[in-house]
């Protein structure tokens, strides 16, 4: 035990020394990685940290950026929302990073937002989220509701002829906002209130018996019913297990999920889930040369030929490429110059097509609807023809409908009704 502690300590000292040494030896461009490596969110965020390390390593192999090497500075905010803000401050003011790639939950993003705005730095946020936000200091590379939720509902209504809807979610800001948007969208399409059931459960809910029974009950009114699930994280596994056990088949009541990707499915036996749906902007199963290369690179980097790729990983890939291009174009890592250079940056996304950064700091993305296959992958059953631009403010929320997000003159504002000069 003693030896173990001593060697760990020695290792830590050496590691610190190693981290300091190159910074002194040569000038590098630092990139902050702000993802939880411990606590509840570690399950999802650790992967994104690894992706960032891979992207930085790859860029360095290509000769770095502006003639300098890139250096990833990894911190662990431990799934603790206030700690996110502290770590962000540490990255920006002490480590002097040029940009930060990080956050997963909306609450962690909301927690770091004031820090980024105060210190004027850049955050690349890679996860699909509820929208209703546009900050000068955040680039949103995940989907806004109009790039995920609305197309999924449209697909169910047209292809599966669904007329009765269960909106089930975890009880926090993302599901609540998304469901608010969806509810008003469905009502605008003529769906009656009695045909919409909204249900919230706590984080990590594990006993889904009564809720699945209730869904079955709601679905037996003689009208085609579907479940729109914004259930987040771990709670999905027991939810899908219960669906399978209670015999809710996708051909009877399909479930379309917005937070279930390849990583989440890796923990379950997917045979009973055949045909349930997910809406994303990327699936590992899409066969394009870019995607094949990305998957190969990832599995080699992580040294595990079975590791899966998922949507937020692609978002980081696109965000990082855009940032690299913007820095090259601006010729500097200065935040204001890079921000200006970001608008209109184009990157080929991994599923075919080109993503463009919009002036509202959201990118255009293709929307894919996939059905769960027996091997835990998704089979794309529907895809938008062209990438869809992300909308920061939803037209289906009355207060938001009149807002514009545009960070170029004369608007220079993330949510205002009339142009204002900064």
């Amino acid at each position, binding site marked *: 035990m003693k030896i173990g502690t001593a060697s760990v300590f020695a290792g830590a000292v050496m590691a610190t020394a190693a981290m300091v040494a190159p910074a002194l030896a040569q000038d590098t461009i630092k990139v902050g990685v702000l993802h939880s*490596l*411990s*606590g*509840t969110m*570690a*399950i999802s965020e*650790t*992967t994104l940290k690894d992706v960032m390390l891979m992207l930085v390593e790859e860029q360095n192999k290509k000769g770095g950026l502006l003639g300098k090497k890139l250096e990833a500075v990894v911190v662990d905010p431990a799934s603790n929302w206030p700690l996110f803000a502290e770590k962000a401050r540490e990255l920006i003011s002490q480590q002097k990073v040029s940009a930060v790639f990080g956050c997963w939950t909306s609450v962690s993003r909301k927690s770091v937002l004031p820090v980024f705005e105060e210190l004027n730095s850049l955050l690349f946020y890679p996860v699909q989220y509820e929208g209703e936000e546009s900050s000068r200091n955040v680039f949103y590379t995940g989907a806004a509701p109009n790039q995920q939720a609305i197309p999924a509902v449209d697909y169910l209504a047209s*292809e*599966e002829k669904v007329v009765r809807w269960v909106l089930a979610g975890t*009880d926090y800001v993302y599901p609540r906002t998304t469901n608010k948007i969806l509810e008003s969208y469905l009502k605008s399409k003529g769906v009656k209130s009695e045909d919409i059931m909204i*249900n*919230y*459960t*706590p984080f*990590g*809910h*594990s*006993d889904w*018996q*009564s*809720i699945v*029974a*209730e869904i*079955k*009950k709601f*679905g*037996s*009114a*003689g*009208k085609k019913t579907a479940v729109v699930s914004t259930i987040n994280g*771990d709670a999905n*596994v*027991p939810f899908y*297990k*219960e669906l*399978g*056990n*209670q*015999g809710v088949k*996708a*051909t*009877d009541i*399909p479930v379309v999920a917005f937070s279930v990707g390849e*990583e*989440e499915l*890796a*923990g*379950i*036996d997917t045979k*009973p889930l055949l*045909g349930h749906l997910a809406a994303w902007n990327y699936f590992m199963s899409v*066969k394009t040369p870019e995607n094949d290369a990305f998957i190969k690179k990832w599995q080699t980097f992580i040294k595990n030929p079975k590791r899966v790729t998922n949507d937020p990983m692609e978002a980081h890939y696109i965000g990082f490429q855009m940032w690299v291009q913007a820095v090259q174009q601006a010729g500097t890592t200065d935040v204001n110059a890079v921000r200006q250079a970001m608008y209109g940056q184009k990157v080929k996304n991994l599923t075919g097509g080109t993503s463009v950064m919009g002036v509202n700091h959201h990118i255009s993305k293709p929307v894919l609807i996939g*059905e769960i*296959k*027996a*091997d835990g992958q998704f*089979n*794309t*059953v529907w895809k938008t023809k062209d990438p869809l631009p992300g909308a920061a403010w939803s037209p289906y929320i009355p207060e938001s409908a009149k807002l514009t997000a545009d960070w170029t003159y004369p608007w220079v504002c993330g949510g205002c009704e009339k142009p204002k000069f900064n």
Partner: protein
Amino acid sequence: MLSFLRGIALALMLALGLGAAPAASAQDLAAPLAALVGDDYSAKGEAIEALARMGGPRAAEALKALAEGRLFRRRSDQLVVIAPTSSGGTLTDAATGAAAGSAGDRELEAANLNNRLRRQLAGLIGSLTLTTGTPAERRAAAEALFKQRDPAGLPALTAAIAQEKDAGVRAAMEMARAAIVLSSDAPEAERIAAAATVGARSDREALGLLLSVAGGAPPAVAEAARTSAAAIERHLAMLDYAQNLYYGLSLGAVLLLAAVGLAVTFGVMGVINMAHGEMVMLGAYTTFVVQELCRTSAPALLDYALFIALPAAFLVTAAVGALLERSVIRWLYGRPLETLLATWGLSLVIQQAVRSVFGPTNREVSNPSWMSGAVDFYGLTLTWSRLWIIVFAVLVFVLLLVVLRRTAFGLQMRAVTQNRPMASSMGIRTHRVDMLTFALGSGVAGIAGVALSQIDNVSPNLGQSYIIDSFMVVVFGGVGNLWGTLAGAMTLGIANKLLEPVAGAVLGKIIILVLIILFIQRRPRGLFALRGRAVEA
């Protein structure tokens, strides 16, 4: 829907005249087969229909392969092939049946289905097996027809009923027939009779059908459908209570499993053990390891891996428990605050250790076949996994009770916790008893982990989600009393599940917490308070 009607009729032709119909040539098959492996889902629907119309063994084989996910396009030459499994293997040319080499799934592009096509195929295959399949297949076919309610299937169904010998299957077919008649535009009298027949089914499917008919049928039929539906609704409302009670029992069993180990370490020994949840988690990971070992070295045992995991989990967690007691907790007896902090720290250490060894992502522990699915018990849906967990929780509880009450070790344990100096002077090695008691509590938590791995995520955070509930159960039931733990777990489980449909899961939990706070205010020692001098000490 229309295309489906035609599909059924064609499938019947296909079924009846399979041998007689001239087999379609390879050229005829080529176009629809190519459509099946394409990207256009409406073209696929038409291609399925075209194949059913052509008939012949090749077309039937292709449809079967499509339904089972074994139809592929080879990426190298675009040939449509059939593989023996959904992950490739030795291929045959779908159009000619000739051998076509072999390939793995990265060289093949599967012919994908969506839910609509899956329904279409299920209907086709169902009507194929209506008269020819095994009784189970015939019953499934009748069930599919009940769901589809397709008037075009009626003549075939009537014919099938006439020649059906198995009474159960015939009843299912008659039910399907009634469903079709009810939703068709048959004479009113027939539809009214059909409404009564469907009403006898008294489940959700029947209710859904009756309600949809009641919406748009002639008044007399709608009235009959409404009457039947009302009867079903009354029946279902009764069932709902029973069902919620069962859910409550099963949640209670889960809580009991999670808390019963804590009832030993906290209840009997008085150690505020925040690392209790991590023992549960270690038990779940042991299950994962045992299952992986079975998967790689003895696949035949996979279905029984849980029985191997039980003793393994008990030993692993008991050993870890004994180690913790020896190294940390024994120095902190009588200092509850320090114990709380130390065990909480330990829980973080164990979590991070597991995260480093097994990775942060969830591990898949599969359900053995005898724990998957559900059984229908007079209209109640009882899922096997929950049923076994109730049985298992009761077994664990009884076993622990026997150990505490009927064995020498149990006697020593109670002696030590009630009066340590006296027990010591009677020759009991109290330190050893402390260690064993802690090991026992941890081991029981470990076997709880085996059960919980079946219904929850096996992740490093597994324990955290149960620790609060466990303390709640033990404190509510009465510290130091196993029966209190049982009563506490069941009360909380049932109360939670009765509240959930009314108040929702989030509010339900809050109400339970508030009720517990109020209860503890009135009875600080919980449901079953220990009495006597030991308590005052």
